[in-house]
C-alpha cells in the first residue's frame, strides 16, 4: 500500500507516525503452492461440528476360505474323499445267477473272431445287469436310508408309464407321469409273503418348516400278496404325480419295494401335500424287524405345465424357485474417489437397484413392440453419426441395450 492510499483511507488523527508496512495477500500464494487443503481448520482430518457423535462402524469383511496348513499339499480329490467304510447291506443276499453251460474252446474262438470283426451283437434287454453304481452316483441310497447303506436288487420290479419304462435314472417328462404306472412284481415266495411298494420323490420336499423331516411320498401300496397284482394290496397313500417345482431342476423319483412275511400296518397320512412328507429312513427304522428292501428303480423328472395344472387342481399355487446370487462386492463409496474413475460406472455401482429397475422398465415401456414394426437389421443404424456426436459412455449404453444386454430389456418379465 502506498503512502497516498494510506492517507486517503485513514484520517490524519489516526495515522501512525510511520507508514505501516502492509503485505500483499500471501494466502492465495500458499494455496497455489500447497493446494486448497492448506488452510483447512485441520490439515490432517476434517472436523465437523455437527457430527461429533458419529461412530464409524468397523467394516465387515466376508469370511475368507481357510486352508489348514497341514493339508495344503493334498489335492482336491484327496481332500474331498470320504473315509472309506465298508457299506452295509440292508437287503437280501445277491441272487445267484444261473451259470450257463461252459463254452468250449471252439465257441470261444468263434466269439473272439466275431468280436474282432465287430459282428458280436449283444441284446441289452436280455441281460439282467443289476449295476448299483448309478444309484451310488445319484446318492439314492444315501438320501433314502442314510449314509453307507445299500441293498441288492433281488426281485424283478417293472414299472412303466404306458410306453416309458423305468430303468435306472432315465428322464421322463412330468406330463407322462400324470396317471399311475403299471407295476409288475416278480413272485419269489411261491405265494407266501407280501410286498410293499413306495414311490418317493427324493427332492420333492419344498416345505421350509419340514426341511429336515424327510421326502415327498407319492404313492404307497402295502401288503400286496406275493404273485398277485398290485390292486390286491391296500393303498395307504393314493397316487400323486411327482411335482418337480419350477426352477428346481431334475428330481429323483424312486420306487422301492419291501418284502415282508407278515402283513404290516403302515400308519401314513397322505391327505394333504404337506402331510405326504415322511422320512423313509425313520419309517424303515421303525419297521426294521418286518420289512426288508428287495428292489429299487428310479427315474428323473423336471418341471412341466402338468405340474402347474396339478397344483392348481389341488388348490395350491405353483411356486417359482430362483437362484439367489450374491450381490457383487463393491468398494465403499467415496464422495470424491482418489483415483479417476469412469463416472457413469462408478455412480451406477451405488445407485439404488430399485431405481435402476424402474429406469429399465420405463425404457422397455417406451419401446414396446408393435406387431407391424420391423426391427432394424443393425444394432445401431446411425453408428457413425452417434460415434461422432454422443459421448462414448452414452453410445456404449445404446449399443449394450441393443447388443449384449438385449435380454435385460426385451425378455419377458417373470
Amino acid at each position: 500500500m502506498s503512502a497516498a492510499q494510506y492517507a486517503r483511507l485513514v484520517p490524519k488523527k489516526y495515522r501512525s507516525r510511520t507508514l505501516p508496512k502492509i503485505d500483499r495477500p500471501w494466502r492465495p500464494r500458499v494455496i497455489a503452492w500447497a493446494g486448497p487443503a492448506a488452510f483447512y481448520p485441520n490439515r490432517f482430518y476434517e472436523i465437523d461440528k455437527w457430527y461429533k457423535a458419529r461412530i464409524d462402524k468397523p467394516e465387515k469383511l466376508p469370511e475368507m476360505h481357510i486352508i489348514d496348513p497341514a493339508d495344503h499339499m493334498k489335492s482336491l480329490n484327496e481332500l474331498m474323499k470320504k473315509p472309506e467304510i465298508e457299506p452295509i447291506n440292508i437287503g437280501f443276499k445277491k441272487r445267484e445267477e444261473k451259470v450257463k453251460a461252459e463254452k468250449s474252446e471252439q465257441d470261444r474262438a468263434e466269439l473272439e473272431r466275431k468280436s474282432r470283426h465287430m459282428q458280436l451283437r449283444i441284446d441289452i434287454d436280455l441281460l439282467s445287469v443289476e449295476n448299483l453304481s448309478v444309484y451310488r452316483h445319484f446318492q439314492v441310497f444315501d438320501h433314502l436310508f442314510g449314509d453307507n447303506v445299500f441293498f441288492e436288487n433281488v426281485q424283478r420290479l417293472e414299472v412303466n408309464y404306458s410306453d416309458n419304462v423305468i430303468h435306472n435314472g432315465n428322464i421322463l417328462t412330468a406330463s407322462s407321469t400324470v396317471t399311475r404306472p403299471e407295476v409288475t412284481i416278480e413272485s419269489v415266495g411261491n405265494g407266501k409273503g407280501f410286498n410293499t411298494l413306495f414311490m418317493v420323490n427324493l427332492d420333492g420336499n419344498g416345505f421350509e418348516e419340514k426341511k429336515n423331516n424327510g421326502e415327498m411320498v407319492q404313492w404307497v401300496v402295502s401288503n400286496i400278496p406275493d404273485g398277485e397284482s398290485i390292486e390286491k394290496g391296500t393303498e395307504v397313500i393314493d397316487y400323486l404325480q411327482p411335482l418337480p417345482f419350477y426352477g428346481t431342476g431334475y428330481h429323483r423319483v424312486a420306487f422301492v419295494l419291501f418284502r415282508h412275511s407278515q402283513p404290516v400296518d403302515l400308519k401314513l397320512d397322505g391327505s394333504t401335500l404337506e402331510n405326504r412328507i415322511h422320512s423313509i429312513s425313520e419309517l424303515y427304522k421303525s419297521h426294521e424287524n418286518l420289512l426288508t428292501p428287495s428292489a429299487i428303480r428310479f427315474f428323473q423328472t423336471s418341471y412341466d405345465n402338468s405340474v402347474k395344472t396339478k397344483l392348481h387342481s389341488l388348490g395350491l399355487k405353483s411356486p417359482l424357485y430362483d437362484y439367489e446370487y450374491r450381490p457383487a462386492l463393491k468398494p465403499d463409496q467415496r464422495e470424491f474417489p482418489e483415483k479417476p474413475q469412469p463416472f457413469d460406472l462408478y455412480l451406477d455401482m451405488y445407485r439404488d437397484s430399485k431405481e435402476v429397475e424402474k429406469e429399465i422398465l420405463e425404457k422397455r415401456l417406451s419401446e414396446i413392440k408393435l406387431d407391424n414394426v420391423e426391427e432394424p437389421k443393425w444394432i445401431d443404424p446411425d453408428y457413425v453419426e452417434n460415434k461422432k456426436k454422443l459421448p462414448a459412455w452414452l453410445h456404449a449404453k445404446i449399443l449394450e441395450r441393443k447388443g449384449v444386454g438385449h435380454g435385460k430389456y426385451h425378455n419377458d418379465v417373470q
Partner: protein
Amino acid sequence: MLTKAVMTSLCATRQAPVNVAARGIANIPAHEYHIRFDQRVGRKRPAQDVLDRFKRLNNGMWIHAHPGRHKLKYMKDETWQKTSLYYETCTKEQCEILDKLMTPYWLRQKHYPNDPYSAYHVRHNINSPRVDDRGNFVRERKKILMDDITSQRFFPDC
C-alpha cells in the same frame, strides 16, 4: 524496383516455418490458469477453457474426458482403447479449484430436458458429512440440517 507484394512474399519465405505447438501441460497460456476479472463488469469471468473441457454434475462432481486419449492410439492395447473413452471423475482438490474458476451461475443446479446425465445428478448412500466445518452444505441439494442417523434413514440420497 520490386513491388510491395513481392517483398512481403519474399520475407515470408525467409522466416522459419511457424510450428503450431500442440497444447499440452507445458504451454497453457498464462491467462487461462488464473481467475480473470472483467474490468467493465467488475466481476469474475468464468474460465472458458474449463467450461469447454469439463462438466459439472449437480452434486458438485466434475467430470472430464481422458486427456491424451487420441495420442499414439495405434500402439496401445484393447483395454486402453476402451477405458480411454471413459469420462473420469476429478479429485476433491480439483473439484474445488474448478469451482473457484466458475461464477455462482455455473455452480447453480441445472435442469435440462432429456438430460442424459439426469441419473447422475444425485448421489446415493454417501456417508461423508453433508456440511463442512462452517455448517454449509457440501453437496448441493438443500435440506433441513438434522442429525446424521435421521438424515441417513430418511434421506439416503443427496
